């Protein structure tokens, strides 16, 4: 049984303690289905495509990442070895650059690489005090396919962010968010798997009688109407930057309104995660959550920050007691290389677990992985040089047949990653002519 988050988040927290022992037991949950016509729903189930972006910090030790051979018959280097079971479902792409991060506008290489990670647009180009970025690829995709699901997209991570200071000499917004709805709208991420689960399956498992649930549902809609009127009146009195903030608020109101209006139900097997004991468990719970979100068709677009930009986390369970960021300034030292290889391999292991789980879930047209495109990369290539060229990139899944997988492709002339994003957009039927600052032509894969 689960608590419904909107009824009482505090009691929900209290209940979680009580229910901890029961956590992990799979239960069939009725949940609210997205609001779209039944015919479209049936069609969507057959042709649904998913996008997931996975971010890791501090770059990758490329010597142990880059396959020597090009094409299908390459040997997996040490860091990519965990992908063995799914290598036919993965493209290894080398030689691409994040051109937008190389335009030095503000902040350090981590902040720029992260701010531009999915937007491919230089951040804060005018150097003003307002945030400045562009729409991220996941949000562009969500604009088109997001209406089909209860949550148009979901942003997940493992850390909210350090508690003080600036992040790489600029606003922390660029280091903690990779999904941007618009130039000034970073989309905050959920870092608690229990809260994220409850949000994903809101309304499910309530202890309240149906009539009371329905009364509350209608009340919530009335309240949203009231505050929408408040906001609309307020907007009339505000200047443009203040209005931008209220517009963000109204976007949130409308998104929630759509979710509450939806009264259709369906069944899906989902088990609520327990409160994770440590980072490893937290990350694993987040991966499980992503899988269930796709499997239950709660959302089709997810971005995930395995950690925030420039993370200085230690990895004691891997025997690494120095901070990752610190080690990533490796000074070409072999001992540092060994530690980076260990961390990077662990990161790929986590990613491989996601791919294996997606590959194991069959839908009518193939596996969940077949219907998805899953992008993996980092904010920089190499931690010592802080380069944004030759990024470590994996593109997993087939996007419903749009991508021929299982190869290593090496690009010359440093094409911008924005061109790869155009290719990804094509897989979702989005024929934008450009993306970001430098994306002008889809990359042929």
């Amino acid at each position: 049984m689960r608590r419904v988050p909107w009824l009482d988040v505090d009691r929900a927290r209290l209940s979680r303690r009580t229910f901890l022992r029961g956590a992990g037991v799979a239960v069939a949950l009725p949940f609210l289905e997205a609001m779209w016509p039944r015919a479209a729903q049936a069609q969507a189930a057959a042709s649904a495509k998913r996008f997931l972006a996975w971010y890791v910090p501090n770059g990758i030790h490329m010597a142990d990442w880059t396959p020597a051979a090009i094409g299908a018959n390459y040997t997996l280097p040490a860091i990519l070895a965990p992908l063995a079971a799914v290598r036919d479902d993965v493209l290894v792409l080398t030689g691409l650059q994040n051109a937008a991060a190389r335009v030095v506008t503000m902040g350090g290489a981590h902040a720029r690489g992260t701010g531009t990670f999915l937007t491919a647009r230089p951040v804060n180009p005018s150097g003003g005090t307002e945030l400045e970025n562009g729409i991220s690829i996941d949000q562009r995709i969500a604009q088109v396919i997001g209406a089909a699901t209860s949550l148009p997209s979901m942003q997940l991570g493992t850390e909210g962010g350090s508690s003080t200071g600036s992040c790489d000499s600029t606003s922390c917004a660029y280091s903690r968010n990779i999904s941007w709805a618009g130039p000034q709208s970073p989309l905050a991420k959920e870092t608690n798997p229990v809260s994220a689960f409850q949000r994903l399956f809101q309304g499910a498992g309530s202890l309240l009688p149906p009539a009371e649930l329905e009364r509350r549902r209608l009340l919530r809609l009335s309240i949203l109407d009231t505050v929408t009127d408040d906001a609309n009146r307020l907007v009339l009195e505000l200047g443009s930057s203040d209005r931008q903030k209220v517009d963000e608020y109204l976007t949130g109101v409308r998104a929630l309104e759509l979710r509450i209006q939806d009264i259709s139900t369906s069944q899906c097997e989902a088990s609520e995660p327990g409160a994770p004991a440590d980072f490893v468990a937290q990350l694993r719970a987040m991966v499980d959550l992503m899988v269930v979100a796709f499997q239950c068709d709660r959302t089709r677009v997810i971005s995930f920050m395995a950690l925030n930009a420039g993370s200085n986390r230690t990895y004691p369970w891997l025997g690494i007691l120095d901070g990752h960021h610190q080690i990533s300034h490796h000074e070409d030292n072999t001992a540092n290389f060994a530690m980076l290889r260990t961390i990077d391999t662990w990161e790929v292991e986590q990613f491989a677990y996601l791919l294996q789980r997606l590959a194991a879930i069959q839908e009518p047209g193939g596996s969940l992985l077949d219907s998805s495109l899953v992008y993996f990369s980092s904010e920089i290539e190499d931690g010592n040089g802080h380069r944004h060229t030759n990024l470590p990139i994996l593109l997993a899944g087939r996007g419903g047949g749009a991508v021929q997988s299982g190869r290593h492709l090496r690009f010359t002339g440093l094409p911008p990653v924005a061109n790869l994003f155009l290719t990804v957009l094509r897989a979702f039927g989005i024929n934008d002519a450009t993306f970001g600052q430098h994306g002008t032509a889809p990359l042929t894969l």
Partner: protein
Amino acid sequence: MLSLSRVVVALALVAIAAACGDSYEVTEPTSDASSATASTGAMRADASTRAPTSPIAAKTEAEAESALAQPSSAETQIASAPQPLAAPETAAAAPIAPIADTTIHHAARPAVVGSPTFTRTVGAATIRFWSIFEGRTGRERFEYHFHVTVQNGGGGLLRGAVMVTSSAAASHVAISCAPFGSTPPGLTRDADAPFVIAQDRATPFDASKLAFSIDATPDPALCQDPGRVTLRRLNRTEYDNTVRDLLGTSEHPALDFPADDFGYGFDTIGSVLAFSPLLFEKAEAAAQSLVEAALRVYPPASAQRQQAETATHECGGASGNYWNLWSECGLSVQVTVAAPASYTIRVRAYQTAAGPDPARMQIRAGALAVGAEIDVPAVSAAPGIYSATTFLDVGTHTLHVEFTNDYYVAPADRNLYIDYVELYGPLDAVPPPPQIAALRALCNPAVDGTRPCLRERLQSFVRRAWRRPPTTAEIDTLVTLAEATAAGGVDFEASLGSAMTAALTSPHFLFRVERDTHARSAEVHALSNHELAARLSYFLWSSTPDATLDALADAGTLDVPATLAAQVHRMVLDPKARAFVDSFAGQWLGTRSLDDVNPDSVDFPAWDDDLKQAMRDETHLVFQEFLQTQADFLGFFDARFTYLNNRLATHYGLPTPGSTTPVRVTLAQGGQRAGIFTHGSVLTVNSQPRRTSPVKRGKWALDEILCIEIQPPPPGVEGMLDTPGATGTLRERLAAHRAKPECAACHDYLDPIGLGLENYDAIGAYRTQDAGQPIDASGAFPDGRSFDGAAEMAALVKADPSTPHCVAERLLTYALGRGLDAGDATHLDAITAAFQANGRSLEDLITAIVQSEPFRMRRGEPGQ
């Protein structure tokens, strides 16, 4: 003396930026590291040939090649006929080249370097423009930052302000106005506000488009720019504190909100605090939950008893008034709970004994076991009542009783007989918080009427929730909502609750709304008293105004300077000021980051949560003492007192005070500890997991104490120090690092402060050796001021004139919730002067900020 000035550092950065090609549209080195290194060296040499006496000279390679560049002009004297005072001056001026864009300074203090960029004569006065290094640029926009001096060449006293306006508004905007005070003949005065001229990057700056005037009797309004704070939402801390004060809750719902993003070092910055859909969902949920909990009425404890015969059975059969569970299975009953609380589940039962053990049963609520299995030794002659207690939420629950150890070896047959299952509770009813009791005391719907009572309670609640009196129309809307809810069949309290929930979901609650006097006009205006009360309250309490502030705001008397000063005094002494310590000091000094650091447990076995908390307490209590006494705040840097508990005293190698809670202790003259630089908190959060980081420690002090901003290293030149197997002390490794010119430019500033703190290890314990070598804690600033050890270093920082100015800058940024810009320089100088005028107490500084124009006023914003 003050070589630690922003300008000098900026120049150094020009050199390094040019050296590394780190500038506009110059991209980073590619993967080919060798070519990057080569070009770095070559460009460094190139840059060094241009002595950066003027920032203008410090163009980058990209700009030199760019078609945008104009001939560099270190000094462009403009010959111009004497003009009558206050008349615009429009003589032709040569365009000057764009300035290299590298650093971003916030409210950098104007300073004069090299030769003036150009000079104008207005009447008897000569105005000199000095470009200071402030190019904050991007693709579309470009800014020149000028500082102006006015020389009085006339016969009488010149007093007034210099104003610059543009005759080419399309390309030149943001021209400002600066007072220069009283200037006797022959003397030169600073017009102490930088002039920021922003324009399209593609257009060379053309001074001929500027018009100059000197206003001998300036209208203060002409020079007034209090700045503008972007509409601020409550951050997580503020949300939790606000609902605590409004509803009396002890919950922290915002813990589940997404993390707040930071800008300018703080989580109070309006422009950076985005309002994501996720946040709205959380806030909507929190509002319902909070109001439901606040208004909840706990029924008196009572019993719901259900006979076993009428339960749902998995096995067994009726046996008189009992149900006989004759194999391992159970029965279940449904109960409904109206209030979330602990309840006791009682089961009356007996067994028929057989085998070695008594019968056992397990009670469950839903799928969860309530307590352990229970032995049922009672027999039919004297059935027992067995119970277990658990927390149950509102709603319908299924209670199971299960027989778990069936025994049958004929004829011996152990069975469990159940009489009834009873739920008793709630056991722990929570009384309504005082805020809700006060709301209920306002009126009685049965006596005063439903609608009048709804109005009265909502008027009172919304007044506090929205930090201003609501309009009649706003209350009408909420009353309508409540009455519609009541029509759905809920009681008065629940209908009131729906309107209260709406009030807490409204933008008027979630944002701190400040209205412009004329919508979408840039007019400068004073805040309303209610808006001012909110600014004051969120500044010092991170929460909503209390009854006293509300009353002053309602009376319209809060904005009297003496009243503001009295309120500041009252507020810093209030326990709620702890929020200011946690939020401002926690971010300024980094104590909040104690939760983020991971000192290595092998190297630092002493590190644990108790030590972490003791460190946090120490810094916060010392800061709080400075906040609540009138002590000279610069004493913070060498204070010979602190707050220690036994744990931290042991860690520091000091005598234990005999207390597990922190107590104030006096530190010995010439001892190992004095002032903030020797606090374990600051030392730990600015270290690496396994070693100290003089660079992080130095960067923190430069950023936060001296306001010298060091930009991140250009691409390709970062890294160092942690090469495994590297020999030598950290000091030696840093020295080798600084031997590289591209590193020295910044690290000559970054390293000395940290090196002075090398006697303190990565968790702040005192040490005399590093890598087997004695610690050398001496150092020198680039201007030659040298020191040996933390105390001497701290004394230099304390004496540096940048320090009080910087403290004021950080505090003003926090208080306003926006980054400072050139327009704030005058205000900041005035605040700093007021801070230093008397005893230099933190309260004086806070008062000066609260009384300043940027705090009390705002500029409007033209709409579109």
